[in-house]
């Protein structure tokens, strides 16, 4: 089990039910990455995520630290789930809070983009026809 890691878990992810208790926080942004039913036109039944957990956990911690250096944040966190996930399951959560909304939005986008492109986490997609394939991921820098 990878539950010893702060940013990587095999447990089901639940959305936070309350905000962090920070009196100066005027804006809070929650991003959830959700398992969807289609990839490149093919019907997906479920996914599996794996990671180089020690490294992924450390890299996400560094990305969050960088976000705190780039913006005046009150709060930032990110957690990614591993293992078998069904349609509609939450794969990743990024939540950020700041005095004003602008910084919370920008920092949130920054964190999820870096997590997707840099952190050693991989997705295997399983299709209705019984086949499966590792997602090709992103080998190049671009926006999407």
């Amino acid at each position, binding site marked *: 089990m990878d539950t010893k890691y702060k940013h990587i878990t095999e447990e089901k992810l639940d959305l936070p039910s309350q905000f962090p208790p920070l009196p100066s926080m005027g804006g809070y942004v929650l991003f959830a990455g959700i398992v969807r039913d289609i990839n490149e036109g093919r019907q997906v039944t479920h996914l599996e995520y794996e990671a180089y957990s020690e490294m992924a956990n*450390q890299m996400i911690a560094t990305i969050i630290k960088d976000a705190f250096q780039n913006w005046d944040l009150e709060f930032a966190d990110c957690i990614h789930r591993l293992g078998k996930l069904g349609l509609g399951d939450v794969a990743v959560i990024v939540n950020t809070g700041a005095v004003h909304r602008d910084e919370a939005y920008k920092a949130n986008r920054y964190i999820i983009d870096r997590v997707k492109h840099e952190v*050693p986490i991989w*997705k295997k997609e399983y299709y209705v026809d019984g086949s499966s394939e590792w997602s090709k991921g992103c080998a190049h820098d671009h926006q999407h």
Partner: protein
Amino acid sequence: MKIQLLSFAALKEFFPSKQDLSLEGINTVSDLKSYLLGLKPDAEKLIKISRISVNQTIAKDSDLITEGAIVALLPPSSGG
């Protein structure tokens, strides 16, 4: 030189997820990539776009691999 080599995701179709290797004449990340390409030519495309970490730090091709290092082959990330 002995190292431990970890492979992830699609690279596990070519290499074991964890293996101990005894290497001769391999000093850098680049040397190791060439060695692995020699073992599995079919993995060339994937190895070329993968990153390599040495002791959990992303390494450049010119970085040295040292005795006892834990080296990991990291295909392009697809988390999120």
